[in-house]
C-alpha cells in the first residue's frame, strides 16, 4: 500500500494532474482506504511541493501544478468520503475574499487553491467583497477562519473593518482572522487585531493550520 501512496505523492510533486486523476480512480475501483490515500499520498505530495517552493527549488508554475493535481484527485475522492461519512480529513473551513474596492483576484485565488489542496474546505467569495459579506459567509458556512486579501494601502483598511464589525457583533472570538496582500505585514495584523498574516499561499496554509489547531 505504501507504494501506492508514494505514487500519489509523486504525481503531485510532478504536477501531473492526469496521473493524479488516474490514481484516484484506481483507489476507488480497488476499494483502497480513501482517507489514507488522501492523507498519506496526495496531501503529503502538496506538503512537499510547498517545501520545495519555499526553499526555492520550485517556482510558481510548479506550485500551481501541484495544487491542481491534488484538486483533481480530491474532486473524485471527496464525494466518496462524504458517502462513507468518513470524518477526519477536513482540517477546517475557511471563507476567503478580496476586500471591497479591490478587484485583485489571482493571488487570493491561489491561496484558496492551496488551502483546498491541503485539506481545508474553502468558500471563495471572489473580489470586491464587503465586510458584511465576509461575516455573513462565515456564519452561513460555519467556518473556523476568515481570510481577507487587500492589494492596496487604500483598501487594506477594510481588513480592519472586518475585525471591528466582528467585535461590534460580539463574535470576534468565534473566528480566526488572517490577512494577506502586498501592503500587509505582521505589524499590520497586530495593529488591527488580526490573528495572523501570511505572505504567500504556502505560508497561509501553515498559518491557518496552526491557528485552527491551536498548536
Amino acid at each position: 500500500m505504501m507504494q501506492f501512496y508514494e505514487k500519489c505523492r509523486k504525481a503531485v510533486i510532478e504536477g501531473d494532474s492526469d496521473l493524479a486523476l488516474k490514481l484516484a480512480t484506481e483507489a476507488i475501483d480497488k476499494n483502497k482506504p480513501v482517507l489514507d490515500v488522501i492523507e498519506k499520498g496526495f496531501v503529503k505530495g502538496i506538503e512537499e511541493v510547498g517545501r520545495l517552493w519555499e526553499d526555492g527549488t520550485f517556482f510558481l508554475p510548479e506550485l500551481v501544478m501541484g495544487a491542481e493535481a491534488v484538486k483533481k484527485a480530491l474532486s473524485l475522492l471527496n464525494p466518496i468520503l462524504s458517502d462513507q461519512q468518513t470524518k477526519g480529513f477536513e482540517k477546517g473551513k475557511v471563507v476567503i475574499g478580496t476586500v471591497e474596492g479591490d478587484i485583485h483576484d489571482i493571488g487570493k485565488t491561489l491561496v484558496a487553491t492551496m488551502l483546498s489542496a491541503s485539506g481545508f474546505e474553502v468558500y471563495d467569495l471572489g473580489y470586491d467583497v464587503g465586510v458584511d459579506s465576509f461575516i455573513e459567509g462565515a456564519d452561513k458556512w460555519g467556518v473556523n477562519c476568515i481570510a481577507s486579501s487587500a492589494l492596496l494601502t487604500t483598501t487594506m483598511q477594510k481588513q480592519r473593518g472586518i475585525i471591528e464589525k466582528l467585535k461590534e457583533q460580539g463574535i470576534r472570538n468565534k473566528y480566526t482572522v488572517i490577512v494577506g496582500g502586498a501592503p500587509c505585514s505582521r505589524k499590520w495584523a497586530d495593529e488591527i487585531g488580526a490573528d495572523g498574516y501570511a505572505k504567500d499561499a504556502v505560508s497561509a496554509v501553515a498559518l491557518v493550520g496552526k491557528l485552527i489547531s491551536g498548536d
Partner: protein
Amino acid sequence: MEPVILDNINIEIKEKELLKILGNMGRAESWKGKGIEEKIASVLELASKLIEPKGIYVIAEGRSLGGTDIFDSLEKIAFSICTIGEKLEMKVNALSREGSMLEAVLLDSAGSVAVEETADYIENRIGEIAAGEREKVSPRASPGYGEWKIANQKNLFELLPADRVGVTLGNSMMMSPQKSISFAIHISESPVRLRGKKFLKKL
C-alpha cells in the same frame, strides 16, 4: 504642452522577464519536462493577441500637479499613465473561474510584464525627447511609493485625460484596467530620483 497619446505601442513580452516574475531566476531546472515550457509559449502567444499597449503623457512643470507640493521645485517633469487594456485581465478572470489556475497565473504574469514594458517604452520615448534637448531623465516613480501618496493619484487623473486611453480611477485609487501604470519622470540636466524616502531632501 498638450498631452500626447501613444497608441498601438509595439512591445514584445520577453520570456526571460516572465520567468523572472514567476520566481525563476536561473534556478535548478526541475521544471523542465513538465510541460511548463509549452504552456509558457502558448500563453505568450495568447497574451500578444490580447494586449493593447497604449499610454498618455504630458511634460509640464512640477507644480502643475495638484494636491501635492512635492514636485513644485521641478521645472520639467513628465507625467504618464499607460495600460495594456482590459482583454487580457478578462481572459485571466475567465480562466480563474474555470479553475484553470496555471494558465490564469501565467497569463496574469505575462500581463504584468507587458504593462511594465509599455511603461519602459514611454520612459524611453521621454528619454529621447530629453536627449534631444541635451537633458537627462530620472527613473520613473509611481504614486504610492516613497513620498508620493497614493491619494495623489486622483490629481494625476485630473491632469491627464486617461480615459482617452481607456484608463479610469476607482474610489480606492485603483486603476482600471488593473494592468495600468501611472508614473512621473524628472527631466533636467541633473535629474533627481523621484522615489525613496529621502527624495524630498535632494530637491
